[in-house]
């Protein structure tokens, strides 16, 4: 068998999120009923790692695709996997309305504050002062708090939370809760604060330090 080599950059947070997702699916014997839809961006690289049905969609369009899928196959566990740009910029309209309508899909947002695949441009989640190719003098705008905004319109039984890729225990717990919310017929979203050393131009401790900066702006925990 040919080894399925990782295509993510060294130090990327995506493989951690995918590994945690798979662990929960496997533990709960949910692999067969899970369907993983991928947005475009670094998310698309997850297309052939997990032993679950997986397909790629378009940038910003994984949420409406999974809405359609779940409505047609109610017994599936429908997961939309998307970056912060796909979720909170180009796909925001659909994400917002999916939350508003309490669509029973699970959205995993990997927030690394930049557009990773295209070279680290400014995202809705970019931090104040952060230098990116499209904010060369430092970002001066507001950092979007997607989960907190969605909480305002979501059903009270929808599950919305934020965690970080350096907290395995919390990641596992939150993924489990998000799955439970879908099984109970509700929308769920977990945002993962994640690493992007390639575009952050960081290494080792610098990458961890940047994640700590993100935690100060984006508090982790269940959003109620």
């Amino acid at each position, binding site marked *: 068998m040919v080894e399925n080599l990782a295509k993510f950059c060294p130090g990327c947070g995506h493989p951690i999120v995918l590994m945690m997702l798979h662990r929960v699916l496997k533990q709960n014997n949910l692999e*067969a009923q899970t*369907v993983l*839809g991928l947005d*475009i961006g670094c998310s*698309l690289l997850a*297309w*052939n790692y997990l*032993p*679950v*049905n*997986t*397909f*790629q*969609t*378009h940038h910003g*369009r994984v949420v*409406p*695709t*999974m*809405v*359609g*899928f*779940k*409505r*047609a*196959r109610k017994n*599936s566990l429908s997961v939309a996997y998307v970056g912060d740009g796909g979720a909170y910029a180009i796909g925001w*309209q*659909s994400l*917002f*309305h999916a939350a508003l309508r309490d669509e029973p899909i699970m959205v995993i947002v990997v927030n690394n504050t930049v557009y990773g695949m295209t070279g680290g441009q400014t995202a809705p989640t970019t931090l104040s002062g952060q230098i990116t190719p499209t904010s060369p003098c430092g970002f001066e705008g507001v950092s979007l708090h997607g989960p907190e905004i969605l909480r305002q319109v979501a059903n009270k039984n929808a599950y919305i939370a934020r965690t970080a890729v350096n907290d395995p225990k919390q990641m596992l717990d939150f993924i489990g809760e998000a799955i439970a919310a879908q099984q109970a017929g509700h929308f769920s979203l977990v945002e993962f604060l994640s690493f992007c050393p390639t575009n952050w131009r960081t290494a080792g401790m610098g990458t961890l330090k940047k994640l700590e900066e993100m935690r100060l702006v984006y508090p982790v925990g269940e959003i109620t």
Partner: protein
Amino acid sequence: MKKLMTGYEVVIQAALDADVESMFGYPITPTCEILSGWAASGKKYLQTEDEIAAGFGVCGAVLAGEKSFTVSSGPGHILLQDSFSMAEAMRLPAVLVIGQRGGPSSGTVIYSQQEVMLACFGGNGEGLRLVYSPASLSELYLLTRRAFNEAWKYRYPAVVLTDGYMLKTRQGVDLGKMEKMENIPSTSLLPDNKVVHWPNIYTAEEELNAVLEDNKKDYEKISSEIESCEKFGTDNAKVLLIAHGIVGAVARMAVEELQKKGVKVGLFRPITLRPFPKKELDKVCGWKGIKKAIVIESSFGQLARVVRDQLAPEIDVSFGYLQKPGLGIEVEEVVDFVKKLKI
């Protein structure tokens, strides 16, 4: 037995008879009544936040193995190209009913034939889609049924390209034997018993090229089973009228009237715009007697572009055009136009 029906009711009836289970849509004139009529039918539906979500909702539903469709027009048709290019790439049997309206931009709200290019070649693809253009309410029924059947049989997205005049028309419709047409069943594109890893983006240029070559080969193979046209009075015609949709119906009436006056005129009406009935067009235009082929349409030449592109290059025929973008075309205008030709 004839039933009194509107075009909207015909589309809904055809979708119900095709065993369609769901619809995703966003209200836009002149297709709102299909959305509301479907909602009243008791079948599954979702009024989405925009046409982008409607199109991708249909893609998601068909991936799950459910027959599903959306309807739209003009600016909504533009937004639907996002999802339709995915459907084209992944060969998803998504079905779209378009009520053309005037354009560009928001234009007018009821009628035009200006969405031919968008329906046939919209998106960053190669036009590997099925596009049907009905000329009557009974044909609207037939082609809507065919769109679902052929989309699921051959796995290409399908568009029923009509307009607000047709959808708002109410007349006696005889569905006759068409109602008993057999349905091609839907199948799950992601079967439960195996794991599918389905890419839609490629790392190597050669990989994408190979997929496209295969899709094109399949498309060419099935084209003869799908291509349809109406030919009327073409056998000894000197003047050939080429028109589609309701302008095609008008052209047919003009041909009947002119023939009564002894004018040698015939009609070629493509019923499928993709795949285009190319061989039949070549046959009709290749007949030595044809002095002039007149392409008639409510557009500045969108059908004419397709016709000239599809016609075999060795066939030498002189073209003329009657073009009224965004306007209906009446029988008398066509008759007068042909009478003034110096043949």
